[in-house]
């Protein structure tokens, strides 16, 4: 098949076209969409979703799902917020935040890989437990008034682009390379394609699952740090609904919910599409409730398209 035909038929291409079309619509119908402050705002919100989507892409490629990322982000916000309040060294804050996310993610991974509990159940339970932990830790109060000097990760910019987005970009490049060129990266695909064949070829299923869930947790934690940096506030509801955005980004970006295929770049485009829809709706003063309807419908439609097309292969 012709290379160009292949590119055009990819989901990433469709999403890219949608992004362009929506951008044009919003640019024409509002005067603020293309303003530097709006774009910068959009990108700094995008960064967290894009980073967590890296891990989520891998989880979904293995045929799993992780709905606990929102709660994990919430818990990471509590940890990083508390440490930033006492002006702890940034390296310590970073490690503690990543460590918190990693711990939750590894716990998911252990339960899925060793306990063989279905991922949706495991992470649904984890989502509720971790959220309860957040409530417990904050005790109904907010953490606020974190000084801007320690919030560089959320507020900083370089060449007009938020620092967090640069980090997200770097992580996307690194992990895309990892997925394409490292044997562990390929085993993520192998597990999602045919676990039995993977086992026979010597792929370690358990290691692979621990890795993807652990990574997803750690990245969700990192997204929490960015969130605190950006807003300077920690609330009990930080990250509620975040999992929906991340999963939407991944499935919109062409990762099959049945596992086996998908790319991180696709998820970035999916995240961008979600961010633009949300942003444009605010600018157009469309009620916030409609947003949920649109994102939810997009998830269902893209999975539907995927399943209908998937029937051809195999």
């Amino acid at each position: 098949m012709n290379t160009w035909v292949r590119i055009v038929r990819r989901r990433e291409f469709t999403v890219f076209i949608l992004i362009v079309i929506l951008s044009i619509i919003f640019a024409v119908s509002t005067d603020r969409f293309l303003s530097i402050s709006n774009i910068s705002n959009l990108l700094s919100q995008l960064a967290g979703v894009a980073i967590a989507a890296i891990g989520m892409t891998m989880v979904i490629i293995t045929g799993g799902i992780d709905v606990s990322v929102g709660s994990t982000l919430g818990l990471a916000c509590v940890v990083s917020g508390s440490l930033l309040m006492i002006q702890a060294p940034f390296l310590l804050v970073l490690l503690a935040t990543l460590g918190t996310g990693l711990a939750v993610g590894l716990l998911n991974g252990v339960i899925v890989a060793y306990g063989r509990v279905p991922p949706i159940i495991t992470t649904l339970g984890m989502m509720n437990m971790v959220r309860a932990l957040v409530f417990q830790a904050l005790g109904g109060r907010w953490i606020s008034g974190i000084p801007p000097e320690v919030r560089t990760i959320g507020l900083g910019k370089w060449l007009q682009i938020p620092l967090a987005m640069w980090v997200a970009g770097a992580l996307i490049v690194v992990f895309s390379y990892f997925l394409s060129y490292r044997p562990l990266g390929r085993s993520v695909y192998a597990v999602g394609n045919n676990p039995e064949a993977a086992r026979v070829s010597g792929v370690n299923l358990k290691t692979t699952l621990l890795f993807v869930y652990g990574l997803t947790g750690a990245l969700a934690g990192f997204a929490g740090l960015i969130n605190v940096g950006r807003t300077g506030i920690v609330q009990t509801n930080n990250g509620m609904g975040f999992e929906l955005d991340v999963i939407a980004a991944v499935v919109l970006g062409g990762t099959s919910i049945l596992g086996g295929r998908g790319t991180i770049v696709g998820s970035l485009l999916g995240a961008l599409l979600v961010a633009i829809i949300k942003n444009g709706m605010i600018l157009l003063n469309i009620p916030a409730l409609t947003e949920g309807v649109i994102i939810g419908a997009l998830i269902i439609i893209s999975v539907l398209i995927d399943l209908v097309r998937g029937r051809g292969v195999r």
Partner: protein
Amino acid sequence: MANILECRGISKSFGGVRALNKVDFFLRPGEVHALVGENGAGKSTLIRIISGALMPDQGEIYYQEQKTEITSPRLAQEIGISAVYQDPLVYPYLSVVENIFLGREIRNRRGNINWRQEEEKTRELFDWLGISPQFVHHLMGELSVGVQQLVLIAKALAYDARVIIFDEPTAILTEHEAEKLFEIIARLKERGVGIIYISHRLEEIFQIADWVTIMRDGQVVGDFPLSEVDRDKIVKLMAGRLLVEEIEHAGQKSREPVLVVKDLTEKGRFYQVSFEAYQGEILGFSGLVGSGRTDVAQAIFGVSKPDSGEIYYQGKKLELNSSEEAMRLGIAYLPEDRKTQGLFPILSTSYNITVTVLNRISNYLGIIDRNREREVAERRIKELAIRTPGLETQVFNLSGGNQQKVVLAKWLEVNPQVLILDEPTRGIDVATKAEVHRIIARLAEEGMAVIIISSELPEIIKLSDRVLVMHEGRITGVFEGEAITSENLIRAATGERMTGANFPKIEEGLP
């Protein structure tokens, strides 16, 4: 030349049943060694041991003159023993290149995968095998099973295989693809690869094999260079002297057939199948798995729609749109896979028995009358001697044999005129099997038309009054009385056209 693989005195039992009994098997490099035998003769157990999927209970394997313990399929592959199974283990959404190299990537100094070199190597392998290079960039799932099989051969070569096992490779191939495969096998031979070739198609074996080992009942019963045997001798050895005690039943064969099938064809599955079934008679359907037996049964039961041909039931033309309709008319079909198609495993025994007659046991409000349900279930449990701790016991707790009796009971409740049983005793212990056989005989006695599909020759021979044999979607033999012998059935099942069958002329454009 020295043997590349020697299996000496291999024995293997599963739960007290001897699958292999002191089997010796020798393979020379550059030899195509055919392995033949009826279902259950032990071929697949033997190759699973050779390819590392099973460990033998006794015996030794020497590979390249070294005593070797093949503990896993991975190890087997590493040391050069690869198996190409009927149902290929592939990664459908990954590229052909990756399907070959996954788990054993070509890496550069930093440990990264060297895609370019993997692709080059794939091209080389494809070139050597004569596979079109256009497939290199495809996803595996986009290819036909035939081409997938070729990719798996390339994979075996990438592992530098010295022994390649083919398990009925042509069963899923078109004729053209099969010819291509034979060419490749010839080239592998030249390269000195030892090939173990399992097939039920004897004509193929005479075309490509050098040596043949014949197995029966877990033992090797013959081991010859192909030049020293003929088809007759192989069939005789496969059949052996089966000791079958026949079950007599006093069923009165009806004068008029209850079911008449004429020229039934469903493209790709079966062609021009014609037969008649009578009340009070047990009609056996023999042949290999995949020969179309089950497909014919499902067409009669309304599960699939045939492309052409007619079915007459009780003298009237039958046009079914669903299996519910077939049931209402009195045609029952017990599927092969009782777990997924025949039972509700987590529901009670009584529910499973009465599920087909819920209307009859419910009152005018449509609410199930528990007393009536219990009555019906208890009667059948007693009649069929179903061993269950109680009516409320979930059926997955019952033994395989008793589960099968539950399935039988539920169909008997609808009092069918025609009862089709697909592999009714698969996976059932010997004692229960005999009971199920007696039940089947009694049903015929009571005037039912019973059609039994089975891969086990003894079962067919024991029960049937008349036997149809299918091969690749066609009836190749019809036998009655004395003519029902294992030898005749094997001949017909391996594609020989036997007298007694009405052979429609073969059209063009068949698979």
